[in-house]
C-alpha cells in the first residue's frame, strides 16, 4: 500500500463532504491569516514609532517654562515666584564643565503669525525664532538652499527656512528659495527648504518656518521670555545625565532649593518614545496571543470534524478492515485528511494574510514579519497532525467486528 494511494483515499474522503471540508479549512485559514496580519500590524506600529523616534532626534531634550505637563520634576505646591526662561539660561547650559553631556543648545521663541505671498496664506504649526543649532538638535535638514548662520542671528537678518508643507502651500511646485514672503507683516527671504519629515500623527512636521531668534524678537514677537530651550545631548544614552545637569544648572539660576517645585519642566522625547515603543511591543504580544488563540480554535475545529467523520464512517472503516486494511493504513488515511485540511487552510491563510497586510488598518501600515508566515504555516501543519492524531487513532483501533455492526 503506497502512501500515494492513501493520500488519494484521504482526498476522496475530503471531497465527499465539500462544505464541511471548506468550513473546517476556513477555521484554520482565519487563524493563520490573523496571526500574520495582527503581527504585521504590531510590527508596523512599532516601526512607525521607531521612525518617528529617529526623525525627532533621539538625543534632544526640551526645557519648557512652568512645571506642568510631561516630565514635571517635582510634585507639591506650584512655584511661588516663577522665573521665565531666558537667553542667559540657554547660554548657561552651554557649560562644558557643569554640563559635559550637553552638545548644544537652541533657545526657542514661538511665533504666532501667518505667512503670505500673493493670495496664498498659511499659519505654520511650528514657527520658531531660534539659533542655527536648532537644525541639528531638532534633526531638521535643509534639502534646497542653506541654513541660516550665527551671523544672520547677530545681524538680525530677515531670512527663513521653510518646511515642505509651507513651500507647497505658498509656491506650489515653484522653487521658493530666494523668494520673499511676509510673515506677520514683515518680509522674510527664503534661504532654504527642509527635507520632508512626515507627520508624527497629530502634528505635521513639515508645516514649519524657522527664522533667526533676533529677527523674531525685533520684528514680530518683541522681547519676551523664551518659549523653550532645545538641548541636544551628546548621545542617546547621555539624555538622562543631561537632564540632571539641566536641572542642577537651572535650579541654581532660578533659586530653587530643597523641596520647592521647579518653575520649568524637561520634556525627554527619547524616554517618551521608548515608553511608547515598549507599549507597542506589549500590544504586539497581545495581538499575537489573540491570533494564536484563534489558530488553536481552528485546530480544535479540525479535531471536532475529524471525530464526527470517524463516527460517520465507522462502518466504512469496518469494511476496509474486513478486507485487509492494516491499522497503519487507516491511521494514515485519517491523519492525512486532517493534515490536508490544515495545510490547505494554512496556505490559504498565508495568502489572505499577505493580502490583508497590504491595507492600512486603523492608521497603521502593517509590515509583514517573514518569520510569522513560516511559524503560522508550520504551526497549522503541526495542528493537523496533533489535532487529527486522536480521531485517527480512534478510527484505526476500532475492532472490525464492532465497526461493521455500526449503523
Amino acid at each position, binding site marked *: 500500500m503506497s502512501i500515494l494511494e492513501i493520500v488519494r483515499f484521504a482526498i476522496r474522503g475530503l471531497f465527499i463532504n465539500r462544505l464541511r471540508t471548506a468550513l473546517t479549512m476556513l477555521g484554520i485559514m482565519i487563524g493563520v491569516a490573523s496571526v500574520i496580519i495582527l503581527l504585521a500590524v504590531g510590527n508596523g506600529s512599532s516601526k512607525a514609532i521607531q521612525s518617528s523616534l529617529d526623525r525627532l532626534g533621539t538625543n534632544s531634550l526640551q526645557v519648557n517654562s512652568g512645571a506642568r505637563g510631561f516630565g514635571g520634576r517635582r510634585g507639591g505646591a506650584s512655584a511661588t515666584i516663577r522665573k521665565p526662561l531666558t537667553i542667559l539660561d540657554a547660554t548657561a547650559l552651554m557649560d562644558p564643565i557643569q554640563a559635559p553631556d550637553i552638545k548644544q543648545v537652541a533657545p526657542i521663541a514661538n511665533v504666532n503669525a501667518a505667512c503670505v505671498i500673493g493670495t496664498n496664506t498659511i499659519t505654520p504649526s511650528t514657527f520658531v525664532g531660534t539659533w542655527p543649532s536648532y537644525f541639528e538638535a531638532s534633526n531638521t535638514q535643509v534639502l534646497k538652499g542653506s541654513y541660516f548662520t550665527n551671523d544672520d542671528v547677530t545681524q538680525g537678518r530677515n531670512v527663513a527656512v521653510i518646511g515642505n508643507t509651507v513651500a507647497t502651500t505658498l509656491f506650489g511646485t515653484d522653487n521658493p528659495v530666494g523668494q520673499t514672503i511676509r510673515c506677520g507683516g514683515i518680509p522674510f527671504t527664503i534661504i532654504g527648504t527642509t527635507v520632508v519629515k512626515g507627520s508624527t500623527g497629530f502634528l505635521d512636521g513639515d508645516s514649519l518656518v524657522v527664522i533667526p531668534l533676533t529677527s523674531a524678537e525685533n520684528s514680530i514677537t518683541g522681547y519676551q521670555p523664551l518659549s523653550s530651550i532645545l538641548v541636544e545631548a551628546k548621545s542617546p544614552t547621555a539624555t538622562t545625565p543631561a537632564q540632571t545637569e539641566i536641572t542642577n544648572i537651572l535650579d541654581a539660576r532660578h533659586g530653587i532649593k530643597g523641596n520647592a517645585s521647579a518653575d520649568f519642566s524637561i520634556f525627554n522625547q527619547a524616554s517618551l518614545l521608548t515608553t511608547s515603543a515598549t507599549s507597542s511591543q506589549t500590544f504586539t504580544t497581545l495581538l499575537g496571543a489573540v491570533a494564536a488563540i484563534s489558530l488553536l480554535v481552528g485546530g480544535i475545529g479540525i479535531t471536532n470534524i475529524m471525530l464526527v467523520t470517524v463516527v460517520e464512517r465507522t462502518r466504512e472503516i469496518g469494511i476496509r478492515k*474486513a*478486507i*485487509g486494511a492494516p491499522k497503519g493504513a487507516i491511521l494514515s488515511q485519517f491523519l492525512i485528511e486532517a493534515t490536508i485540511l490544515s495545510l490547505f487552510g494554512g496556505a490559504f491563510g498565508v495568502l489572505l494574510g499577505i493580502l490583508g497586510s497590504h491595507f492600512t488598518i486603523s492608521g497603521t501600515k502593517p509590515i509583514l514579519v517573514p518569520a510569522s508566515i513560516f511559524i503560522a504555516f508550520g504551526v497549522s501543519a503541526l495542528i493537523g497532525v496533533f489535532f487529527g492524531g486522536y480521531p485517527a487513532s480512534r478510527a484505526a483501533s476500532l475492532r472490525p467486528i464492532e465497526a461493521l455492526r455500526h449503523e
Partner: protein
Amino acid sequence: MDSVAVVAAEAVDSVVDTQPVIEVQHAIKQYGIGEASIFALNDVSLTIAAGEYVAIMGPSGSGKSTLMNILGALDIMTSGKYFLDGIEISSMDENHLSIVRGRKIGFIFQSFNLIPRTSALANVELPMAYQGVKGAERRERAMVALEVVGLGDRVHHEPTELSGGQQQRVAVARALATRPALLLADEPTGALDSKSTNDLLDLFDQINAAGRTVIVITHEHDVAQRAKRIIRMRDGKIVSDELNKERVA
C-alpha cells in the same frame, strides 16, 4: 465461463491439497462472566478440506454468525485453536490478522458492504491495494473478477447506481480478486430477490466447481441445499454435520 476456472485454479495451486483449509479445535466464545455469561460457541471443533462447499445453518442465536466472524478473523475466541490454511490464527495480533484477512479470506456480507461513492472497479481493487498489488496488475485482476461475475459493463458504476444483486456480485468480485484460500459468505442472499439469489448461487457453484473452498452461512433451506456439506448449529454447538446427498452422488 472459462475465466472463472482461471481465477479459481490460480488459488487452488497455492493450496496444499493434503492440508485442511480450516481446522477449528474446541472453540469457545463466551460473553460476560460468572452466572450471567453466555456461550455463543460452546466447544466447537470443525475441519473443512480444500475445495469443499459448506453451508452452516441454524436459527438466530445458534452461534453461526459468531463462528463466521471467527472463521473470517474478524473476532477472536475466548479459548480454542484455529488454523487457517495451516497457519494458527488464534494467537495472532491485529497487524497479522489484517494481512490474513486480506490474503486468505474473501468476505461476502448480507448488506454487501461496498465502500459508498466509490466505483465498482475501485471497490474490487481496494483489498489488493491494501496488499500492495501495483496499479496495472490490480486493475487487470479487478477487471477479470468483474467479468467473472458478469459486470464487465458496469465497472465505473457506484454502488447506488447498481441493483442489490449487482452490488452483491461486485462484493463477490472483490472477494475473488485477492485469490483467497476461502470464500466466506454471511447470509449472502438475505437482501436479494429470488432471481438474484439464484444467479448468485449459480456463481457460487461455478466458483466451487473451479476448486475454491466456499462457506455459506444461512438460515434459508434452499440456499443450504446448494452446498455439498451442511452443518447445523444450535445453542453454540454443532448438532449435525452431514454430506448433502442431493449434491454429492
